């Protein structure tokens, strides 16, 4: 298994696109977070329903586009380049191949997202000044950890979808509109919002907030748990399909 992990690590890290998408994530999350705080931070902070987590990590939604692109390049990208044939000839145990691929992708996103979450918190609160919070503020440490775990688990969901769809354009056309537009919009539809919060990204977003909203039916830890269940279910489905299908 270590051999397979090393191989997937070399594959992921020798592609420039991996580093570019991770850089895109950092820029989107930290940049948009700082931008939002700098422009409307003081106004928002004066609102009665102000949530420091939501505002500081406002860029997460945009960062997810980078997460989706990375996840699709690492998975469906193998099919686009036919390198999946080479991969499966080298590693015929498909479960090990998939597990190594998901692990490497998740580790890359986790490390990047954790560093980005911390930097974003520090930068946004410095810009905010007096109303700013810190890791010592109750719930803020948890929200920051969530801001690292949420994109990581979402990456697992997206990598699994990439392995299932096996087509870069198809996977992107499915994932980007869904997580960037559809899912956040569903949360705004009154009759659907209590169901919509169970969607992978919405459940993860709950964990980044400091305060629960009226529509929330579960807390932050449960939110991450629900997202983890989505990730596990998607990975299992991808494994089942990978074992059954011709490469």
């Amino acid at each position, binding site marked *: 298994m270590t*051999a397979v992990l*090393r191989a997937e690590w070399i594959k992921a890290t020798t592609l420039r696109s991996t580093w570019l998408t991770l850089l895109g994530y950092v820029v989107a999350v930290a940049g948009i977070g700082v931008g939002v705080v700098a422009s409307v931070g003081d106004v928002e902070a004066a609102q009665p329903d102000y949530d420091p987590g939501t505002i500081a990590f406002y860029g997460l939604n945009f960062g997810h586009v980078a997460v989706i692109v990375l996840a699709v390049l690492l998975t469906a990208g193998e099919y686009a380049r036919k390198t999946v044939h*080479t991969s*499966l000839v080298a590693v*015929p145990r498909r479960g090990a191949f998939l597990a190594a691929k998901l692990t490497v992708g998740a580790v890359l996103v986790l490390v990047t997202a954790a560093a980005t979450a911390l930097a974003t918190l520090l930068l946004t609160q410095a810009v905010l000044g007096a109303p700013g919070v810190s890791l010592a503020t109750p719930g803020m440490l948890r929200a920051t950890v969530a801001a690292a775990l949420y994109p990581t688990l979402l990456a697992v969901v997206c990598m699994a979808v990439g392995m299932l769809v096996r087509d870069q354009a198809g996977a992107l056309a499915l994932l980007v509109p869904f997580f960037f537009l559809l899912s956040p919009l569903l949360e705004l539809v009154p009759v659907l919002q209590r169901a919509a919060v169970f969607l992978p990204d919405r459940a993860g977003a709950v964990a980044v907030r400091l305060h629960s909203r009226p529509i929330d039916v579960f807390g932050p830890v449960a939110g991450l748990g629900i997202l983890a269940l989505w990730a596990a279910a998607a990975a299992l489905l991808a494994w089942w399909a990978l074992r059954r299908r011709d*490469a």
Partner: protein
Amino acid sequence: MIEVRGLTKRYGEVVAVDDLTFDVPEGTVTAFLGRNGAGKSTTLRMLLGLDRPTAGTARIGGRAYADLERPLRSVGALLDSSAAHPARTARDHLRWLAASNALPAHRVREVLDLVGLRSAAGRRVRGFSLGMRQRLGIAAALLGDPPVLLLDEPVNGLDAEGIRWSRAFLRGLAADGRTVLVSSHLMGEVAQTADHLLVVGSGRLLADTPLPAFLAEHTARRVRVRTAQPDRLRGLLLAAGATVTRDDGALRVFGVDAAHVGAVAARHGVPLLELGSDGRSLEDAFLELTAATREAAA
């Protein structure tokens, strides 16, 4: 030793590989021949565990490929030259392959030297010519120094220089005592290096024979005969056990010699306009062999 038993692959109604059974003995170079779409690649993909057979088994050294512990140490495969990521350098492509099978890192340098890609090792595959990609594919196949090699169309699309190179390379592999199964739709190309021939058409095995026997059987006795009663003569010759194909007004007869054709015609009073036998190339033999089954299948 490669053993294929009753191997079959169906895609819905289409039968890509139809009940193939053959062995590739140790230490031989076996050419796996057939037209494009004859089922060669599908067979190799099933041997490598990429495609699941509808029926039958394909084993290498007594085991299914997917059960091999470090497969690159046992089997080297060249599938298609595009199977390296264009944005990765040649060296990085080989590095991850070596890592996946816990092969020592120095093998990467060795195979790069072996195929003459040392100076291009740090370049991205995107900028490689087809010939260079093919060399990289062969380097990847040799990474684990495997005793068995499966090469799918290694000379396809190569220029004259590349073809000469890969021919010499194939001979070298054979001289090392490796077991090589090399597929091609160009018979002449691989026949020069092969010990044994497997010919497939429409997914079925048409010939499984040593090269000299194939040459003796298929290239020597070919008769060309022209008559005013081609249908009648064809029927008579078929009844005599010959194989007959039509060739713009004339008949081509296999399996019997010219004297035999003349005797049959004389015995039944069929006037002949022309009778002769001519030698022909391996390529002709191959084309006619595969053409015959195409008619049979239609």
